[in-house]
């Protein structure tokens, strides 16, 4: 902006026998400072014994302008020139000196912190990371333990449960998630049916499409995809909600009134999600199976009765339960990641954003890790 406005020259330089005469003119305002600094830097100060500055011609001088002048004076002095003013030096220079009277000490202290060798720094970084991770783990376990003991205590004294709060969380995490969960379950069953139909038709094994859809959706995909969606929706919501409450000192206000934030904030979210996620999973299973039926009808001309019969034949009594049993566990993990990260927020809006991200990523990671463990467990149990 400053560059586009034609600007009167800020100073005139005259070289005399004695040295340099600097006649300052016009406005030395913050908008012109960048240009003035460039112009001042262009002045050749080599072999100049003395610099005389006349500042009376300045019409406007603000602190930034004075800063540029001060920088020039310092440069002239370090180049060996003697700097004097014709008339009084501007007040603003004196204000700056007055303000920064103890500044050099600080600059020296900063230089004292020298970075180590590259190898050493890497080692330090690794060490810090390990220590931080260990702390994280301990804190995370402590949080989980505290949540679960509070939950257990509340369950032992059901009057301490917060039914209204729990219902609200069932609504927020469950009811409002139904459309998106149903849509995703439908699309996933379409994908499985389509892919497997393409492969199996060549072998004349069309009927196994039904097996793939039914077992895939009921055992794994229904609960897994629902959990991933809920982790994205509700894990982030938990972290953001608790995090901004922390920033607002609302959590501190609770503690100060001797209310337990775990009992009021964490447990209702845990319980709400533990109730909502299995229900969502049932919906995902239903919609997934229906999607499979539709696709089998369209792709393979399979009548509905045949589809239903085949589903009944394909699945064992445990198939549905193997899927649904995982839902409360996943719900606990998601709610835990969201609440834990939310309660970790301290200080800044940036931290809030960072921890919400961490909460979602960790929730999804924990869900998939737990699912893998379940897969191994169920295989060992031969279910």
């Amino acid at each position, binding site marked *: 902006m400053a560059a586009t406005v034609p600007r009167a020259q800020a100073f005139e330089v005259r070289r005399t026998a004695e040295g340099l005469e600097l006649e300052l003119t016009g406005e030395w305002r913050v908008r012109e400072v960048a240009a003035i600094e460039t112009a001042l830097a262009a002045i050749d100060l080599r072999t100049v014994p003395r610099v005389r500055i006349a500042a009376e011609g300045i019409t406007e001088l603000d602190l930034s302008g004075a800063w540029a002048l001060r920088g020039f004076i310092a440069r002239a002095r370090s180049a060996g020139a003697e700097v004097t003013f014709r008339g009084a030096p501007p*007040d603003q220079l004196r204000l700056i000196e007055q303000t920064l009277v103890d500044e050099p000490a600080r600059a020296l202290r900063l230089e004292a912190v020298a970075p180590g060798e590259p190898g050493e720094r890497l080692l330090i970084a690794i060490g810090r990371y390990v220590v931080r991770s260990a702390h994280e783990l301990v804190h995370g376990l402590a949080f989980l333990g505290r949540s679960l003991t509070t939950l257990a205590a509340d369950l032992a004294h059901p009057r301490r449960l917060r039914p209204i709060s729990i219902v609200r969380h069932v609504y927020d995490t469950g009811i409002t998630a139904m459309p998106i969960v149903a849509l995703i379950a439908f699309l996933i069953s379409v994908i499985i049916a389509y892919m497997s139909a393409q492969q199996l038709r060549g072998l004349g094994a069309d009927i196994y499409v039904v097996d793939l859809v039914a077992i895939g959706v009921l055992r794994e995909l229904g609960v897994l995809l629902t959990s991933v969606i809920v982790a994205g929706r509700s894990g982030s919501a938990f972290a953001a909600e608790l995090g901004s409450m922390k920033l607002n000192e609302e959590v501190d206000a609770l503690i100060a009134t001797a209310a337990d934030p775990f009992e009021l904030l964490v447990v209702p979210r845990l319980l709400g999600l533990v109730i909502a996620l299995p229900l969502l999973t049932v919906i995902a299973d239903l919609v997934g199976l229906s999607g499979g039926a539709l696709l089998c009808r369209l792709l393979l001309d399979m009548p509905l009765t045949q589809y239903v019969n085949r589903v009944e034949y394909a699945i064992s009594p445990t198939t549905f339960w193997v899927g649904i049993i995982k839902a409360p566990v996943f719900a606990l993990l998601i709610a835990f990641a969201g609440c834990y990260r939310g309660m970790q927020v301290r200080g800044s809006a940036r931290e809030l954003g960072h921890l919400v991200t961490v909460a979602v990523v960790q929730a999804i990671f924990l869900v998939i890790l737990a699912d893998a463990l379940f897969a191994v467990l169920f295989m060992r149990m031969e279910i």
Partner: protein
Amino acid sequence: MEPVLEVRGLVNRFGSQVVHDGLDMQVQADDVFGIVGGSGSGKSVLLRTILGLQRPSAGTVRLYGKDITQLSEAQLRPIKAGYGVAFQEGALYSGLTVLENVQLPMIEHLELPPDALDGLARLKIRLVGLPAEAAAKYPAQLSGGMVKRAAVARALALDPQLLFLDEPTSGLDPVSAAAFDDLVLYLQQHLKLTIVMITHDLDSIFRTCNRVGVIVDRRMESDTLERIVNYPHPWIQAYFHGERARARLGAEHGA
């Protein structure tokens, strides 16, 4: 002389609620102008209107002769660079250090080399009476008084000639509040600032302001401090001569 800030016939309406109805206000260069009013009288709405954060229902707001209610966002930009605002709670960017907070307006509006940016920002931080170490701290690590000072440092980033302060001494202990008043006077004298401040603090008003505008009945009564304390309006009387004010006024007249 042309006033720095001139508000004429300002009307602010939210639905059926009328906050301002024909409010006039004038601030001359080098004034320290205090805006006073009861809770809910529309002090903050007035400030938001002057800052261009919201458009008034009617009336004009002239800053340096330009009616900001008629300007587009782009036209407002240079005008906004010409004044500084320190918000009540500081409104420091929580993810940035104090130094970065002060540098942000400079980076947005100026093209300064990094060392000048650094030096100027540190100068502003020292100027408002913060220790040099405060530059590297985050807002959450500062005390209430330091947050207010840091907010002023950021408001001074572009060397404005006009400074708005929203309740600068609220939430400070009397000693810190008095120190803040001294800072306001110091800055006003050395930087030749025009200052507009919203405040409830009688001590602050008597210490720093030369003119006071009181928002009563959706309008503003403004005059010099000496004269306005004798205005007959009941709210003004209650404010300047109430239980809490009497001690202060007595001391003032005795001096």
